[in-house]
């Protein structure tokens, strides 16, 4: 059985249709990059809102985070796509993917930002305020730069999860890597090459995600090393 799946013809078929896989790869990359940008913007915005101390802003941020985190991404994708389509305001598969996945991970990223900002001692905020920095100056020059090394690992996690979650677009007929791979292996002319097709698909995902987590790891280690160095130079 397994032998069948990896027969030579299957590999030939995948090679013949390599453009399909490349297209899926590029669509997934495109969706991911734009969804990451949207997610980070929403995450930063709502993360700042939940730490700003103004009750109504904190409330809005809580509603967003809880609502998105406690409903399935698949449902959100379907809702956005079908509900909008049937009401005549369809925004297309690509935009649906970017918005729904960006909004979904934005909620998790908001929590990452909230935790990062919350871990900075109160004295840092006061120090910057006493120098005349307004809210955004305090955040930009003093608080957020200190959050980087705390935020980095969970944020890299979110980004990798986001890329993998582009696979939910299959449900609305996306042209992302998972959807195209699935169409390929079930297609009339191309069907049957399960083993190689899924393997290639997996390798392409790995090629996107692994460098990201590795880079984030290196960046984090460098930041920590700098901390140790700066502390170790004490005379």
């Amino acid at each position, binding site marked *: 059985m397994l032998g069948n799946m990896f027969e030579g013809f299957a590999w030939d078929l995948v090679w013949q249709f390599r453009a399909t896989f490349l297209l899926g790869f590029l669509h997934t990359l495109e969706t991911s990059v734009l969804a990451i940008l949207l997610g980070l913007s929403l995450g930063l915005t709502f993360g700042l809102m939940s730490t700003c101390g103004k009750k109504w802003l904190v409330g809005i941020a809580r509603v967003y985070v809880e609502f998105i985190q406690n409903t399935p991404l698949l449902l959100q994708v379907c809702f956005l796509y079908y509900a909008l389509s049937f009401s005549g305001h369809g925004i297309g598969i690509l935009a649906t993917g970017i918005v729904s996945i960006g909004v979904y991970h934005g909620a998790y990223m908001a929590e990452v930002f909230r935790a990062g900002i919350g871990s900075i*001692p109160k*004295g*840092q905020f*006061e*120090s*910057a*305020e*006493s*120098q*005349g*920095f*307004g809210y955004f*100056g305090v955040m930009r*020059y*003093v608080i957020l*730069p*200190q959050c980087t090394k705390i935020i980095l690992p969970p944020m890299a996690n979110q980004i990798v999860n986001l890329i993998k979650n582009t696979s939910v677009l299959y449900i609305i007929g996306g042209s992302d890597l998972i959807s195209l791979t699935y169409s390929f292996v079930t297609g009339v002319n191309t069907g049957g090459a399960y083993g190689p097709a899924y393997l290639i698909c997996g390798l392409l995902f790995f090629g996107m995600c692994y460098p990201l987590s590795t880079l984030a790891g290196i960046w984090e280690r460098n930041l920590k090393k700098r*901390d140790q160095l*700066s*502390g*170790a*130079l*004490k*005379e």
Partner: protein
Amino acid sequence: MGVMIRLSRVNKVFGDLHVLKDVNLEVNEGEKLVIIGPSGSGKSTTVRCMNFLEVPTSGKVFINGEELTLKNRLHIIRTYMSMVFQSFNLYPHLTVLRNLTLAPVKIHHKTEAEAEELARKYLRVVGLESKAASYPAALSGGQQQRIAIARALCQESKIMLFDEPTSALDPETIQEVLDVMVKLAKESNITMVVVTHEMGFARKVADRVVFMEDGRIIEEGTPEQLFDHPKSERVKQFLGKILQH
């Protein structure tokens, strides 16, 4: 010589705690005012109300005649005030030099070169010119506090607030910080408000000493009046305890 800071019937309430009770206080331009008193007496809250790190529950704060409000707070801080904290609060992600130049560049719109010149000048004042490239974590507590003073000086403000600047320091390093503050008090025309337990410092530099207890100003006067001839029993008792150490 005008009134630089005026607190008018300032009250501060934290939950059930009434921390400041109708505090009235004036600080003249160039005056060195020291606030003493037992812990929990409201002296830190008093200075923190002066730049609205704590917003008074009621009462008014005037800086150089202008009422401090949530709206003009940033403007007034930028124009008049800097602060030195008990826990230094240097920015750990920036070098000493960047700690000093951040506000001058981002707030006071100086060029990097101007700000750096300013920073080096004040690093000389606190005797830490050689530490410009270090990160705060590499410095001792006393050095960090001297850097924090230099950072405040870089704002070139008319008013400097000190909230227990030596309370978190090792006994050995307290003196180096006090020396810098004495120098500053003697040689500059900056209006200084210092909350401290260092009576020797108060005696040496204060134009006026204020004794607070339980959210109120109990007594005020020159260091001689307050330390040598205190009027109230409570001040006598407090000084007696401090001097026994």
